[in-house]
């Protein structure tokens, strides 16, 4: 599978929700889509899912434009924080309905997940708590086994044990049935271990797209004597800085060579890795 966006723009009236989005996702991986509120995550994902068309630019899935393309639309599942307040069906009826439209749907797996999340099979969905409705979205997304599966902040309202079940099942099922999974989230620190690749979207543009290991290798926090830190970090991209007396701590973003690392350690500086959570905060903060 291949998902490609070229110069995608989306306008609501005079405002740009997406300014100039280009990226390519190739390979059955879990992609983390990170962005602050209003960054354009849902707008981008809704175009991928054919919920709307871009104002300009193109999105293709395996070379085809998905919008109103029956063959492609069936291959894309988009799960989001949907309002079920008028849904009088129970879980089983709902899943049977979805099975009719999703060619790869695994009913046994869906029923296993219903038990795993301890959802009431007979209760109308509108009477479910928010967290239970989110669990249902997760079940629909996983059991559909769509080659492109999008979870847009689908965990909202789920308690910690339920989220843990979600993450475990996601990794296990992805191992058995690899597909492109795109997960947009705010809960970066909780979900970072799930991602193979990360995209950060900010103010309607893609700030970066990187494999998670390479991305994390680019961040480092250098702590030590103020003068030494200043000297070491002067030609680096600094994304955060803290001071306490003569001790300074600078977070940098960019490749560090082995020689640079050795030199830093020899001069008494402390080098610490940076979490995805910190990188996300500082990179988007800096841009804003």
């Amino acid at each position, binding site marked *: 599978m291949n998902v490609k966006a070229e110069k995608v723009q989306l306008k609501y009236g005079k405002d740009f929700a997406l300014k100039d989005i280009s990226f390519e996702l190739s390979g059955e991986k879990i992609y983390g889509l990170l962005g602050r509120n209003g960054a354009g995550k*849902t707008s981008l994902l*809704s175009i991928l*899912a*054919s*919920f*709307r*068309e871009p104002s300009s630019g193109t999105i293709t899935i395996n070379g085809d434009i998905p*919008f*109103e*393309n*029956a*063959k492609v*639309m*069936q*291959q*894309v*599942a*988009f799960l*989001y924080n*949907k309002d079920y307040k008028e849904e009088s069906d129970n879980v089983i009826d709902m899943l049977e*309905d*979805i099975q*009719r*439209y*999703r060619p790869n749907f695994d009913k046994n797996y869906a029923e296993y997940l219903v038990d795993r999340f301890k959802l009431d099979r007979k209760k109308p969905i509108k009477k479910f708590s928010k967290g239970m409705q989110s669990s249902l979205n997760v079940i629909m997304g996983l059991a559909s086994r*769509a080659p492109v599966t999008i979870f847009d902040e689908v965990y909202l309202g789920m308690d910690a044990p339920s989220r843990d079940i979600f993450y475990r099942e996601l990794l296990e099922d992805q191992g058995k049935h690899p597909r492109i999974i795109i997960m947009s989230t705010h809960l970066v620190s909780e979900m970072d271990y799930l991602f193979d690749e990360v995209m950060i979207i900010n103010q309607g543009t893609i700030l970066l797209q990187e494999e998670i290991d390479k991305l994390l290798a680019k961040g480092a926090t250098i702590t030590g004597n103020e003068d030494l830190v200043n000297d070491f970090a002067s030609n680096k991209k600094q994304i955060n800085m803290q001071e306490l007396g003569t001790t300074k701590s600078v977070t940098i973003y960019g490749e560090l060579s082995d020689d640079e690392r050795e030199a830093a350690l020899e001069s008494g500086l402390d080098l610490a890795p940076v979490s995805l959570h910190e990188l996300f905060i500082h990179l988007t903060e800096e841009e804003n």
Partner: protein
Amino acid sequence: MKQTRIFPKVALDMFVIQLVWTGGFLGIMFLINIVKLIIAGVQGNEVEGYFNTIFIAGNIYMLIIGLLSIHFLSHYVGNGVTRKDYFIGSFLASIGIAIILPIFTILISSLEKFVLNLANISTKVQTINEVDIDENIIGDIVQSILISPYIDPQNNWMMAISLLALNLYINYLMGWLISSSFYRFDVMAGIGFILIALNFKMLKDTLLRISLDLPVPGWFSWLDFLPSGMALIGVFIIILVTVWFIRLLTKRIAIKM
């Protein structure tokens, strides 16, 4: 790999859901009719038949399920169904409902007539076509929604079913058109489409009256010069134009989340 057609699934699913609703509607109306029969029987009045009750109430019912039809769109697109497949499926299902509802109605109505005849209770002679038309615009509008050209099933049951189906279908389309416009645009545009829908409905009623050789009141009475065959073609053109409008509105519509 050959792609299986999706719209027949949508058509079947929407037909079944709306059929269940329709069963509920006909059942409730039947109970209401029984209560009315009992009251009329006690008071010694003539009773109104089931067919005529549905003839009036069915219009409102079809308008409402037409209004609800657009809510299936986000469900289907959310499950990877194209807007086109939703449109074709929904269109076919609505025709199915408009056909099956009068058939159920006439079956229940015939059973009711049989029982009433056994009990020797007479039914009211209907005067639906002889409505009093004044120049009151509100009255005209209300009347245009509620009252459509009528044929007594005892005179020609096939014609009565066909006419009821046509009336019901137009009401469904009105609801679908209005809700599609509200979904697509803002409230002002939606109100504009309500006016368009009302005019389509009144025009269709006028053309039907012309083709059936009934009295022709209302805004479009100047069309009375049309030959009846032409008027009937006009009715089908109105249906086609309404369906085409709905398709245009929903063809590239953004799904609300």
